[in-house]
């Protein structure tokens, strides 16, 4: 295990352990409101990491990740509502569905050499297409929405994901941690090196013998599949699904703001970005209602202005800057004795 954390300094490991301990203790320290905010933060940390695999590692800009969240939500919710299939088994269906959707988009784009901005627009297009499709898909409620039965649960039912926020908090915390470990392992793997090579210069990567089509396909499929559990989670957490909301372009943008603000391609960027943006958004809300400026839109205007400042000041993201300030990464690359 020590090898896994070799690039962290002692200080970095201490901070990491402290953060983890704090997150584990959070439900005992925080009130209900703060707990729901933390759940939202972890949701964005999770989806941000999944998106980061595709863009941050392999350099393929997706602006349509709400598609994978939405598909997974609908698959798991429909299985539960229609057939009484629990979320964990639903996950076994939802993840492959998202992977297949990613594979279709990836195949069409990469086979036909659609890249850059065009690829990004293609991903938006598929998400929009699916949104309108689900609006008219009456089996899952169409535009009227799909609802999971809500009732007061005295005990937490982890098998069917029915319970109080504390249970949901630990579920999404475990998911986020798992995604982080997976991303870490991926980035250091053979595949991770190939992805980064493609991200930096695709022609040079091909000249080094890398099958770029195959690597990009794997990136899209892993990213889509890793996004799916977040969809299952939200379906069971919020208990309602509307195509207009889950497949909305705004949802896709929310997913990617965190990792970009945090630092694209870094392991902590998506997590830090989620804390910063959701924290900002919520504290803005509190501040404005305290000031009595609770006009619709005011909060989002300030949010947009803050976003603008961050991207102008730190265009590479906040994490690289924080990492330098905190000295949490080792300067030296580990050297193996010959």
């Amino acid at each position: 295990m020590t090898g896994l954390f070799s690039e962290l300094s002692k200080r970095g490991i201490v901070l990491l352990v402290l953060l983890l301990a704090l997150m584990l203790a959070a439900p005992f320290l925080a009130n209900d409101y703060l707990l729901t905010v933390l759940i939202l933060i972890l949701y964005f940390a999770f989806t941000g990491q999944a998106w980061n695999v595709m863009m941050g590692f392999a350099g393929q800009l997706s602006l349509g990740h709400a598609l994978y969240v939405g598909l997974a939500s609908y698959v798991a919710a429909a299985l539960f509502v229609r057939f009484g299939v629990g979320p964990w088994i639903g996950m076994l269906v939802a993840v492959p569905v998202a992977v297949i959707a990613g594979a279709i988009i990836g195949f069409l784009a990469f086979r036909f050499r659609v890249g850059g901005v065009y690829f990004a627009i293609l991903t938006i297009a598929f998400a929009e297409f699916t949104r309108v499709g689900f609006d008219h898909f009456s089996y899952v409620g169409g535009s009227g929405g799909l609802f999971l039965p809500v009732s007061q649960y005295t005990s937490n039912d982890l098998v069917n994901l029915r319970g109080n926020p504390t249970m949901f908090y630990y579920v999404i915390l475990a998911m986020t941690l798992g995604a982080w470990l997976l991303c870490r392992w991926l980035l250091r793997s053979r595949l991770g090196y190939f992805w980064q090579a493609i991200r930096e210069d695709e022609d040079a990567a091909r000249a080094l013998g890398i099958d770029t089509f195959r690597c990009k396909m794997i990136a899209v499929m892993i990213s889509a599949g890793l996004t799916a559990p977040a969809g299952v989670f939200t379906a069971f957490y919020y208990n309602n699904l509307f195509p207009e909301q889950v497949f909305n372009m705004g949802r896709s943008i929310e997913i990617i703001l965190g990792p970009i603000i945090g630092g694209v391609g870094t392991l902590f960027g998506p997590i830090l970005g989620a804390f910063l943006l959701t924290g900002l958004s919520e504290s803005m809300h509190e501040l404005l209602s305290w000031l009595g400026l609770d006009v619709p839109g005011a909060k989002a205007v300030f949010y947009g202005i803050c976003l603008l400042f961050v991207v102008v000041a730190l265009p590479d993201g906040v994490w690289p800057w924080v990492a330098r300030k905190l000295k949490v990464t080792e300067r030296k690359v580990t050297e193996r004795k010959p």
Partner: protein
Amino acid sequence: MTASGAAPLLKVEGVSRRFTGLLAVDRVSFSVPPGEIFAVIGPNGAGKTTLFNLIAGVFAPDSGSITFDGDAIGGLPPDQVCRRGVGRTFQIVKPFPGLTVEENVVVGALLRRPDVDTARDHAHAVLRRLDLFDKRTQKAGALTLPDRKRLEVARALATDPKLLLLDEVMAGLRPTETDRMVGILRDLNRETGLTILLIEHVMRAVMALASHILVLHHGATIAEGSPQQVVRDPAVIQSYLGAEAVH
């Protein structure tokens, strides 16, 4: 002629390629025996880089055949050409700027190594050979041009090629840097028997390295032979070398 009798490692036969009306490469044929340093020279726009791109798989030839190590490789995509043992550099260097020097070379080394640790060991050996070991933790984007040129060679070399295609790796280097590169390439060829095909403008490097030279002009071969033969060839002098290079 060197290495007579041995089967050629690379054989190019009657290869042509046309771009919207312009015949960039016109029925070029040559063969490179194993272990040789073979140079392709010619004025700008002679079709040298296009010829390289045809061998490396960036374009497919319109006609003609390219045989490498006994297999036809004409029309194969670049990654498959590389996997068969052809490493290449780019005329305009293409480092992975956000990765460190070491990571750049590890990417190449991973082609024939299953895990990152062994690839890193191999990358270190290659970096030492190219005088880049001390700079391995720097970001490739921060290197100077001579270092980038050597990184380009290191990365290609890390894929364990049988044939190394070098596209103007001396261009833009100062004479001392050129000599350093010439020394590195000559040692590589002598010590490992690596076959090298290079495109080069810097005649002093060509004369120091190549045992055989092919001269292209307007896409077609106008001369071929040993360096001494080629520089005395009237057609070469007239079309390319001009007065300055003859003394």
